[in-house]
């Protein structure tokens, strides 16, 4: 759903981004309150993931750390689950899984999608046509449907869910990177470099790719939140993470069955997902605004 906010086209920068360009982006970002909140949440998530063993009062998989289904207390701030596991420790441990899910999914979609975009834009002709029609077809379906289909093929597991989510986001990168390539190809420096005998690889990776980096960054940030949402949904459906992994979506599925007895199990992992997704969304929106020349003029 989040990826829809990308539906507005991402404007491409006019020139190759120099060091000053990144500085400009940062300063624009710093003035954006939402983006700063997003950045703070993101950093918090990373810190929680890094220091999870230090923060967690208990081993997240330890049964009997407390009694069964104890409500939140000082000893167990988020309460305990049916097995007496400390829910706070599990939510903290879940941040690691969540980062892993987001990073791996984004890495998959970003690498494959960007490569497709580069090839498509650079080669042109039939290759471009074939790739872009494929991208169009993928675009016409909701991410979650594509992800479901991939999981159906590979079988349910967390890793397969992440791959599925990664694949479903490929078309975004392909389209944006291709757009950048098309713009850059028209530029004088490109022609100059080409006439000087620069190799294809050099043209692609030294000249074109750097220009595509800012929009890719925006996509990757927003893609993180989409990936987290979709993977959590798959886990909730039983098609992703499997017990006893402290994955947030899976925890919510367990919480559903104990809703009448233990409200806390269906509450805290949900808060964690929503806040994390909100963080990446705010940061991504901020980045996009910072990169958008129209916004720049208005600012």
């Amino acid at each position, binding site marked *: *759903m*989040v990826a*829809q*906010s990308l*539906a507005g086209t991402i404007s491409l920068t006019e020139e190759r981004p120099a060091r000053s360009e990144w500085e400009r982006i940062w300063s624009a970002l710093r003035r954006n309150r*939402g983006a700063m909140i997003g950045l703070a949440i993101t950093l918090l998530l990373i810190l929680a993931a890094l220091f999870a063993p230090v923060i967690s009062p208990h081993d997240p998989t330890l049964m009997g750390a407390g009694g069964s289904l104890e409500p939140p207390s000082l000893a167990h701030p988020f309460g305990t689950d049916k097995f007496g596991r400390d829910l706070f420790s599990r939510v903290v441990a879940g941040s690691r899984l969540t980062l892993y899910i987001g990073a791996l999914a984004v890495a998959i979609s970003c690498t494959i999608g960007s490569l497709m975009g580069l090839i498509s834009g650079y080669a042109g002709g039939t290759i471009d046509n074939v790739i872009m*029609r*494929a991208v*169009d*077809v993928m675009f*016409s*379906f*909701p*991410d*979650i*449907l594509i992800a*479901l*289909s991939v*999981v*159906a*093929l*590979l*079988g*349910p597991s967390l890793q397969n869910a992440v791959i599925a989510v990664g694949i479903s986001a490929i078309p975004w990168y392909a389209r944006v990177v291709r757009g950048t390539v098309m713009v850059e190809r028209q530029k004088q420096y490109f022609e100059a470099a080409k006439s000087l005998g620069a190799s294809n690889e050099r043209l692609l990776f030294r000249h074109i790719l750097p220009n595509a980096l800012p929009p890719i960054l925006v996509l990757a940030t927003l893609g993180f*939140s989409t990936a987290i*949402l979709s993977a*959590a*949904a798959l886990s*909730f*459906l*039983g*098609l992703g993470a499997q017990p006893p992994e402290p994955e947030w*979506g899976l925890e*919510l599925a367990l*919480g*559903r069955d104990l*809703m*009448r007895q233990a*409200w806390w199990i*269906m509450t805290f992992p*949900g808060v964690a*997902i*929503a*806040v994390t*997704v*909100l963080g990446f*969304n*705010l940061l991504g929106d901020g980045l996009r605004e910072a990169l958008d020349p129209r916004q720049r003029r208005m600012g």
Partner: protein
Amino acid sequence: MGAYIARRVLAGLFTLWVVTVAVSLLIHLVPGDPVRIMYAQSQSTGPEQIEAKRRELGLDRPIYVQYFNYMVKLLHGDLGKTIRGEQPVLDLLMLRLPNTILLTVAALLVAIVVGGGIGFFSAYFRGTWFDTLGMGVAIAGIAMPSFWLGLLLMFFFSVRLGWFPVGGTGLASLILPALTLGLVSAAVLARLTRSSMLDVLAQDYMRTARAKGLAEPLVLARHALKNSLIPIITMLGLQVAYMLGGAVVVENVFAWNGVGRLAVQAILQRDFPLIQGFVLLFAVIVIGVTLAVDILYAVVDPRIRYES
């Protein structure tokens, strides 16, 4: 406009064709032997049965023959039989489809009323507390996992207040799933409606209409609303597609007896013919809805004819 519509129809058919190719042949991408995987999930199956199934699915034939046979069957309305229970896939899907459509339509209403309403008034009362609150809720709403929203609604309205059942198939059971599915889209729609309305409100003809002394509600209704519809309709098309995807999740939260619930069970049981049928069915619906919206779009905005 005719040429434009023809182009859209062709594009839709092309997408559909790609989907049939993918659906009929993707089974070969399954790691391992697909027939064995299917039957790993079924009772006491001997090697003969596995071979028989392989023949029935045509997996022993060359790929182009497989595709041809698949298409011939498909055009006769034959989507194959489920691994479990050997039921015609089409019948099973059709049995559940009305429930999914009911849920999606109800959710769409929720999205339009709530999302459109918040967006419209946020734009009109731009900069006021209503605007701030509305947009804050919308941003939070976009980050909200549908399945969690569903659980929260279930907790408050079913468990705590006892107003609605926690699941089931009756009309009372429809309200919470429809709210869940609709509210997530409402958040997206609210933001879009607001920005679209703001654009329109700043237009000259709005000032003219007001200068002519038209009553404010009339101005809004006749000019503002109508002109801000175009981007909203486009978005609605996308939203319906996303809602269908979301319905898979929401149906499972509330045990709503739709196609999505069937699909998840099929995936868990690795029932490939049923999964193929599900993907194809949803593809047809999504393509159909997209096409309908494209056409509606052309009707509402005649300028579309000159689309490059």
